């Protein structure tokens, strides 16, 4: 479990960083290293160059700007988890962060690193999918952005182009009083999720659905959004709504593996979807019938 030889670079400025990324063949960026280093130690990844992002200023930090929660890519997961600003403006993300890895890995792991790694079980990605987050990429020629739904290009693959880094996430805020829930099933307590569900809901003055969003992670390379949630404005917040969501989730395509079959994953998607939306509705103040 020793990595293949590689050259380590620690750029201290953006120009230095992008010059390196432009010049080096076979380079990988390293943020918190909680996924990449184990892969390198197992020789599943063997980049010739490792470019450390920890020396670049302004890549970490959490702020609210124009009704968007902006989280710098190098923000430690633990910092985001404990951020009062995140808890206040985007409680769903706080709930999701509580499930990411282990406390020890969250101390070092970064929010952007998790999104850039795009593990199919990544809780942050599932939450961001429900939240319609934008991913901001930065390269030598400036920035470009895309919705997270367009970011994934397959298992552990993203739209980050050679020479680019993931710079920050921008999350549109939901109105005050919205409800959210993040639920997952793991194979053992604190460990990788099998299926995770992020649910958001806002109610109108009559108690009907004003807006809802629900993402299911763990079934394929990237989370799925439920149409029944996206198209729910004006629906009553009732059991039929929850049942419709659950039915759709249980029909999503799932890639099973030897520890969780596709039908188990689909089943969990349905169960967790119903539970998560029920909890989100409760948090939004829906009447409990």
């Amino acid at each position: 479990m020793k990595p293949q030889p590689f050259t380590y670079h620690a750029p201290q400025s953006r120009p230095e960083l992008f010059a390196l990324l432009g010049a080096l063949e076979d380079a990988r960026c390293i943020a918190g290293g909680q996924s990449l280093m184990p892969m390198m130690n197992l020789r599943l990844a063997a980049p010739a160059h490792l470019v450390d992002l920890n020396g670049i200023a302004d890549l970490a930090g959490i702020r609210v700007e124009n009704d968007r929660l902006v989280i710098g890519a190098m923000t430690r997961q633990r910092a985001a988890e404990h951020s009062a600003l995140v808890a206040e403006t985007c409680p769903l993300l706080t709930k999701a962060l509580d499930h990411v890895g282990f406390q020890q890995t969250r101390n070092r792991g970064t929010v952007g690193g998790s999104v850039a790694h795009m593990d199919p079980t990544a809780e942050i990605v599932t939450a961001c999918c429900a939240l319609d987050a934008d991913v901001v990429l930065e390269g030598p020629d400036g920035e470009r952005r895309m919705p997270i739904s367009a970011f994934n290009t397959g298992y552990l693959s993203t739209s980050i182009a050679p020479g680019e880094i993931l710079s920050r996430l921008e999350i549109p805020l939901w109105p005050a009083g919205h409800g959210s829930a993040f639920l997952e099933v793991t194979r053992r307590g604190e460990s990788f999720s099998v299926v995770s569900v992020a649910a958001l809901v806002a109610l109108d003055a009559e108690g009907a659905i004003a807006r809802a969003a629900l993402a299911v992670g763990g079934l394929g390379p990237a989370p799925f959004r439920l149409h029944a949630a996206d198209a729910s404005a004006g629906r009553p917040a009732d059991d039929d709504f929850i049942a419709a969501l659950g039915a759709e989730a249980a029909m999503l395509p799932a890639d099973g593996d030897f520890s969780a079959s596709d039908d188990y994953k689909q089943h969990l998607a349905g169960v967790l979807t119903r539970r998560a939306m029920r909890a989100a509705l409760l948090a939004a103040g829906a009447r409990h019938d």
Partner: protein
Amino acid sequence: MTAHAKVRSDAPSAGLGRSEARLEHGPLVRGKGRFIDDISLPGQLHATFLRSPVAHGRITRIDITAAAALEGVRAVLLYDDLRPLLTAPRVPVSMPSGAIRFDVDPFVLSRDEVCHVGEPIALVLADSRHVAEDALGLIELDIDPLPPVVDPRAGLAEGAPRARLDCPDNLVARTTAAYGDIDAAFAGAPVVLAEEFHLSKGGGHSIETRGVVAAWDEAARRLTVWDSTQMPHRAKRVLARALDLGEHEVRVIAPDVGGGFGPKFVFHPEELAIAAAAMLTGLPVKWIEDRFENFFSTVQERDQFWTVEVAAGADGRLRGIRGVLIHDHGAYSPYGMALPYNSATNLIGPYVLPAYRLDISLCLTNLMPSTPTRGAGRPQGTFVMERLLDRLAERLGLTRDEIRQRNLIRPDQLPYPTGLFTRDGGEMTYDSGNYPESQRRALAESGWHDFEPRRAAARREGGLIGIGLANYVEGSGRGPFESGAVSIGPSGQIVVTTGACAQGQGTVTMLAQLAGAALGTPAEKVRVIAGDTAASPLGLGAFASRQAVTAGNAVHLAAEQVRAKILRVASAWLNAAPDELELDDGVVRVASDRERSCPVSRIAEALAGSPGFSLPLGVEPGLSAAVDFQPPGLTYCNGTHVAEVEVDAETGVVRVARYVVVHDCGRLIHPRMVDGQVIGGVVHGLSSTLYEWMRYDDEGQPLTCTYADYLLSTADVTPRIEIHHMESPTPLNPLGVKGAGESGTIAASAVIASAIEDALSPFGVKLRDLPLTAARLSALVRAAGGAA
């Protein structure tokens, strides 16, 4: 000597029942332990192994040219390079067993046929581990694949491929555990039930992997091997025999060992390969198994397939159990057939079973050799018996506690010969205990009889809870002997040496406490040397929950002999009868006149002798005694576990809410350390029951080689484990103690299965297979039509 002395009534002075002593705890907790990787020798080379990428095949070509040419690589060694140093082609590890049909010892490195993924083929020696691993990628290896045997049931079928071309078939052993008239037991029995169980047991998974550091001193002709092993003395014997060395030329030292749990009992080919490489190169060689290769280079415990029938009377009393056990043996035989035989014998448990017949077949497979891990096959036997009792209770409309109560062996039936024999040929006889009281106490402590209101309350909240019950026995303290010597030199230092081996279980503290008690000295002042073949000529080591029984009694008896010698000399010097004397922290005093005293060190000085002067009183030289304690047979500890679980029927997720253990290992030496052993054992058992599962694909490729895929129990899923001790002293050793190292694991699977099945009773789900993963439970519930 074999001792059958009565249990002492003055337990405290024998060092029993006190939990104050802490010897190894502090250094281990503070990171001051000295483990195998902490040992570095000047000029040492770092080793790593090229391992078979396929489960079965024949090596057709190995080209090491590029690897050997890599800068920093000192040597790339193959079987033919090491063979000239060896007395035989194979590593002489097999344990005696008449039922084993074939010689299936492993080779030091693969000779031509590879029989499991991970089998070591080549050994790279380099200036660093990094370079050694780089070199692995440069070795060119061609293997002609052969069909693998992965499922032992298929391996025993007609026309199955052979797992090893040097064996005519895969049935490496067949044996029977039987007594009584089994046909009569079933003929006309009012109740007969049949069941099938597929049990997968988790592995050892010590936090410290294996590792070896070896140095050869050509001038002194001495091989020194530091080995992370449970069995340094046996390692020395294997090394001496394989490398054609005298006993005086080999020293094996087990430094601090970061957990054994069974796999470090086994002598693995790497231990010989590293020693041979050190001899061949003349340079010290270090090999540290990494966490990844541990999954395919260290022995495991795995699959058993049981097909059994039970016959009982209408009152629920057992008449007989018969059936067939097919056991996955793996590719080699480093541990004989103890594992399935323990499963077979432990099935009986604390119950009256008038007749029994289990036909056991061991199938060679192209998987890691399968050998005991904590519990050593017993949890599986207990699981089968306890499941059958639950089934019988259901069939007969009895409660689960009542059916057990009706079948438990009563105290007045002890000593109770079961009718079976242990693997050393002794009759399997339960020596002491009170099994009905154990169950009664567990039911009382756990609130078993008040459970239904709790269940109803949980149901009103939408929760499904269940409770389970299981009883077990465990044969502990396996012989043939263990060594213990106590000596005091002119410095006054008390030194205990033993062939027992410390693995973090508290052996050092336990032995120091016993010696200190006999000699009137605080345990912390006693120095214990364990795990060094230079310190003790004879020894066995850590296995079979044995060291308190064997080494504990050896040290106790040796310390008593030293005490007697001290008092004999002091009696003459102080002019007082021995029973008027007190031994108090290195000083002998006359009880009635404490000014009359003499230091023990002066007695040791006198007994060390002065040139030409006589020893006092004509006593034998030296203030020391050595005892090799031979237990007359296994001593059986026992206990009862009750667990409460909460099951999410929709997801299959189980939460163990409560875990109560009633535990009887005879007299307790250091109760808190016993608690630690029981807690660790239960956690190991829960881990095996709910999470651990070594998976292979149809080609014999291991699928779970990281702790993200292979799950171990963690603190966040572990309940508080409540332990209640009973103390039924055994008459089989002077201290009256029994083993405690494995007992916690033995009932865990049985009790959790019983509790989950109880929680899921609205669905009528039946649990037959281990592990009980959430995915499996959810599938069972859905198949039963529930929680759609």
